C-alpha cells in the first residue's frame, strides 16, 4: 500500500471512524455484529440508485472539464492520455448477486473517493483558477461519500457485512506535474466508464 495522500486520509477517517480505521477491512464473518453510526434509511436501495444515476449524469461533464483545464495535449489525445487503463481499479460484475454487487460497489466507491481526493488536491495547485472544475470535483466527492455510507448501511443491515477489504489507487503526491495530470485524466475516464455500468446494474 502506498502512502495515502493527505486528502484521502481525512476521508477515510470519517468513513471508517471505528476501530481499525485506516487499515484494509476484511469481509466480516456472517455472525459478526454489525452496527452503523446512524439508522439506515428505509428506502435505501432507491437512494443508492438515485445517487448512482446522479453520478452517472455528471461524470462526462466532469471528464470534459478536467481534460480541458489541463491544456494541450490532453483534449486532442484523449485515447492516449485519458484512456481508461487503470490497472488496479476494483472489478465489478453486473451479473452477480446483490450482496456481491454491493461489496464490489463499496470497493469502487472507496477507490474513487480516494483518487478524487488526490485529483482535487492536485488541481487546486496545478489549476488554481479552474473554479468550475474544483466545484464539480467537490460535488462528486460529496455524492460519493453519501453513496458509500448508504452502501455500507445496506451491507450491514441486510447482509451483516461490516468490513470490506478496499484498495486505493496510486498516490500522486510524489509524481511530476504531467504525470499527475495524466493519472487524473485516466482515472476520470475510467470513472465515467465504470459508473455507467454500475448505475445500469442497480
Amino acid at each position, binding site marked *: 500500500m502506498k502512502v495515502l495522500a493527505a486528502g484521502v486520509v481525512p476521508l477515510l477517517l470519517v468513513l471508517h471512524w471505528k476501530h481499525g480505521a485506516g487499515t484494509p477491512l476484511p469481509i466480516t464473518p456472517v455472525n459478526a455484529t454489525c452496527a452503523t453510526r446512524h439508522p439506515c434509511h428505509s428506502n435505501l436501495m432507491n437512494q443508492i440508485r438515485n445517487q448512482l444515476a446522479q453520478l452517472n449524469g455528471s461524470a462526462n461533464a466532469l471528464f470534459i472539464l478536467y481534460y480541458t483545464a489541463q491544456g494541450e495535449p490532453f483534449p486532442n489525445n484523449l485515447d492516449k492520455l485519458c484512456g481508461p487503463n487503470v490497472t488496479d481499479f476494483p472489478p465489478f460484475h453486473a451479473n452477480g448477486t446483490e450482496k456481491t454487487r454491493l461489496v464490489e460497489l463499496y470497493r469502487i466507491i472507496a477507490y474513487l473517493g480516494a483518487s478524487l481526493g488526490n485529483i482535487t488536491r492536485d488541481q487546486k495547485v*496545478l489549476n488554481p483558477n479552474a473554479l468550475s472544475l474544483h466545484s464539480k470535483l467537490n460535488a462528486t466527492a460529496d455524492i460519493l461519500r453519501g453513496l458509500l455510507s448508504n452502501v455500507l448501511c445496506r451491507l450491514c443491515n441486510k447482509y451483516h457485512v461490516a468490513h470490506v477489504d478496499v484498495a486505493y489507487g496510486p498516490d500522486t503526491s510524489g509524481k511530476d506535474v504531467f504525470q499527475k495530470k495524466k493519472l487524473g485524466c485516466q482515472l476520470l475516464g475510467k470513472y465515467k466508464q465504470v459508473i455507467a455500468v454500475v448505475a445500469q446494474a442497480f
Partner: protein
Amino acid sequence: MALFSVSQTAFLLAFLSLRTYQSEGLSEPLPWAPESLKVSVNTTCQCLHLQWTVHNLAHHQEFRMVFQIEISRIKTSNVIWVENYTTTVKWNQVLHWSWESKLPLECAKHFIRMRSAVDAAKTPGPRVWSSWSSWEEADVQNSLGQDPLFIFPKDKLVEEGSNVTICYVSKSHQNNISCYLEGVRMQGEQLDPNVSVFNLNHVAFIRETGTNIYCKPGQGDGIKGTVLFVSKVLQEPKDFSCETQDFMTLNCTWDPGSDTGLLKQLSQSYTLFESFSGKKTLCKPKSWCLWQVAPESQDMYNFTLTAENYLRKRSVHLLFNLTHRVHPMAPFNILFKNVSATSATMTWKVHSIGKYYTLLCQVELYGEGKVTQHNVSVKVDGAHLFSGLEPDTEYLAQVRCANGDYFWKWSEWTHQNFTTAEAAPSEAPDVWRNVKTVQGRCVVTLFWKPLSKPQAHGKILFYNIVIEYLDRTSVSEVLSIPAPASGTELPLNQCSSQIRITASNSVGTSPASVLVVSREPGNEEVEEERVKGTEDGFPLSWNPQPRHVTGYLVEWCEQPRDPPCDLQWKNLGPNVTSTVVSSDAFRPGVRYNFRIYGISTERVPYLLARKTGYSQELAPSDNPQVVMTNLTSHSFTLSWKNYSTESQTSFIQGYHVYLKSKAGRCHSGSEKAVLSDDVVCCKYKIDNPEQKTFVVENLQPESFYEFLVTPYTSVGEGPHDAFAKVTTPDEYSPTLIRILLPTVFCILLIMITCYLKSQWMKEKCYPDIPDPYKSSVLSLIKSKENPHLTIMNIKDCVPDSIEVLNKQEGTRKSLTETESTKPTYLYLLPTEKRYSSPGPCICFENFTYNQAASDSASCGHVPVPPKAPPSQLGLLTSPENLLKALEKNYMNSLGEIPAGETSLNYVSQLASPMSGDMSNLPTNPPEPALCSEYKMQMAIPLGLASPPSSGSSSLSSITLLDEGEHYH
C-alpha cells in the same frame, strides 16, 4: 609568525626542487593527489556533486591547491567541461565541488576525473600536476525504470528568456518519436540512438500553470510529457523611498514590478534591512513597508530592500537623514474671518512635527479665472490675508505645507470656498432707445444690457429711470423696474427729455446712463449703402464728423425677419470711424440693417449712415409668384408685383425670364440658354430688380409655351423648377367671340323669356284642355277647308249615364270577384238635357282619366250614387274629390238601398251592350249590367253616326266607330 612564513617558503622551495628532480629522474606521482573521489547526482538541480580528499598532509599543514576537473559526456574522450578549482587544503579535509549540467543528467552518462597541483602562482615556472584520478561514472539512466519513454527534465523552473535543454530517452528503440511544445513540434538532435535533445532558446512566459511539453511515439499510446515552468524575471525594486509624517514611523514604498509567482514558486518576497540598527523586517505587502522609528535619536538610516524568489535575489539601498524625509500631513480646520467685499482672512492648523521644525505653507486662491499664490511660514497655526478681491465673488482657497528647514514633499492640499460681500455696481448700464410717435405723442422704448458680474458687484434688484423734461414744463418722472427686465416702454409727455438710468443692488446704486430724446427725427434721409459680411462679421465704417461727438453707436436687429427684432447696439469711442460687428446670431441668407449714430455732446444721437448686407449671400431658393395677363395670339404679360426684393437671401440684381417653345427660335431681346436638363430655351434678362412686369412678344398663334421667371443675384439665380404653361389663342378667335357671345346671349334671353312665360305659351300652343274656341288651327281649317265644320258644343255630346240596376243574387259573387280595390275614375260630361237629339259631336280625349282607367286594368264598376245632380258631378273632375264624394255617397246609398237589391252601374255612352236585345235595358233597369269599359271619347263624324232610336230612349250608348277611321 614571520618565522613560520620563512620556513614555509623554504619548505616549498625545497619541495619544488625535489619535485623537479623526481620528475626528471624517477617520474613518481605527487604525494598530494586527490583521492577517494565520489560523484553523486542531484536530478532536482541537475548537478554533479564531487567530494574527495587529499592525503599525506601533515597535521595542521595547509596548502593552497589547484584541482583540475574534467567532465566527459557519453564517453570519456568527449570532454565537455574543464575547470580549475582552487582552494586551501587542510589536513584530513573532505573537499566538495558541484557542477550544474545544462543537459539533464538522465539524458547521458557523465564521466569525471581530476588532478591536483600546488597553487604556486607567486612562483615562476610551470605548474606540476599530479596524475589523473580514475574516471568516475555518473549514470542515472540505469535507475529510470521500465517505461518505454522518458522526458527530462521534470517540472523545471526557469526564468523567462533563458535557454533550456529537453531530452527524451527511449528504451523501445523507436526512432519516430515526435515532441511538441504547446502543440508545436520541436526539432531536436539525436545524442545517441535512444536519446534526442531539444534546445529551447529564450523561452517565453505563457501561463502561471506551466507549459506542457510532450513526446509521443509513432506507434503505441505512450505519450509522455513534462511541464516547464517559466517564471518572469525578478526585477529590481524601483522608486524605493522612505518618508515620515510624524517622526514615529517610516513609510517605505517601491514599485515591485511584475509578479514572479508560479505553481512551482511563490511570489517574490521583500525584506527590509537597516544596517545602522541591524534590524530586519519581512514586508508582507509587495509595494510598501512600515518601519518603526527608533525612540532614541537616530537621524541616519541605511536601508537595504531585498526582493527574492526561488531563482534570484535583488537588492536596492537607500541612505538618508530622517529630518530630510518629512512629508507633513495635510493642514486642517480652514476658516475665513473678516470677509468683506474686497478682502478676507484665512486661518488653518497644521499637525505638529516637533517644536524645532518650521513648516512652509503654500496658499493658493482661485477666482475669476485667476490664481494667486503665497508662501507662509507656520509653526502651529497659519493665517493669511487675501486682499484686492472682487465683490460678490466665490473664491477657492487651498493650502499645503512642507518642512521649512529641508524641503522634501508638499502635503496634500486642503481647500475651502468662500464668497466676498456685495458692493454697489461700479458701471452705468449700457442703454439705448427707440423713439416712435404714437398719436402725436413720443413713446420711447428703452433697452439696457445687464451688468456683467464684475460690474454688478452683486445681484441687481432694480433699474431706476428718471425722466426729466428739458423745457421744464412737466414734472420729472421716476420709475423703478424690477430686475431682470432688460427694457421698458415709456410714453413721454414731451419729446424733448433727458432720461437717466441706474442699476441698484442691495448695497447701492450704479452711476447713471444718460439719454437725451429730441423732437428732431434726425437725419432719416441718409442713403442706404451695401456692406459685405465676412467670417469675422460686418466691417462698418463712416466718415468722421466735423462737429464734436462724444461717441458713436451702431444698432442692428439680430432677427430682422421676425417681428421680435432683438435690437442690439454697440457703443464706440469718439475717435473711432470703423468697426466690425460680429455675432453668433448672424445667419447666412439673412439681410441685416445697420444704423450708425453719432452721439453729440448733448447726448443727442443723430443718424450718420445706414448699411445693409448679408453675412453670406445665398442663391434664391424661391421664384416669384408670376401672374400672366393680356394673353393674345402674339404676346402675354407676366407680372410679379408681390415679390419683395428686401426679404430675399441675397441682393436681387434682376430677373431672368425663360421661355420654352417648340420652334426654339429666340427673337431680339433674348438669347438662347441651355438649362441643366439640356433643354434649350430663350432667356430674357431684366436688369432692374424693381421692374416686376414683362411682356413676352413675338409669339406664334395657337402655340404652346412654357415660361419661368427667376431672380438672379451675385451668387446665382433661383431654381429652375416649375415652368408655367400657356398656349396662345387662334388669331380669329377674338372676332368669333365678339359675334358668338351676343348671339348666345340673345338665345339665352329668349329661352329665359320663354321659360318665364311658359304658362302663357302653353295655353297658347299646347293647352292641357284645348279650347276649340281659342284654336286658331280649327278656325283656319274651318275657314279654308270645311266651312261646315264647327266646334262641338258640349251640350251636343251624348253624356254618360249612371243607372241604378237591381243586382241578382246569383251574380253578386261574380261581381265581387271582378271588383277592384283600386278606385276607378269616372268622367262624366255635364249635361242638362239627356237623350238629346243626335247631332254632330267632337270629343277630346281626357288623358288623365284615361291613364287612370287603363291603370285599373279591370272593369270600372264604380258604385255611383243614383241621380247625382250635374252640379255635384262637376266637382268630381278632381280624382281626390271624386273619390271622397264616391265613398261618402256610396255609404249613404248603402244605407238606403238594401244590399243585393240595387247597385250602381256605370254604362259608357260608347260601350256596346252585351245583350243584343236593347229593349230589355230600359225595361229591366235593375238587371245588372255586364262589364263595360270606359272608352275614350271621340269625335264622331256626323255622317257616320246613326241617329238614336226613338223607340229605345233608354239606350245609353252605341258603337259608332267605323273600321277604317279612328280619332284620337
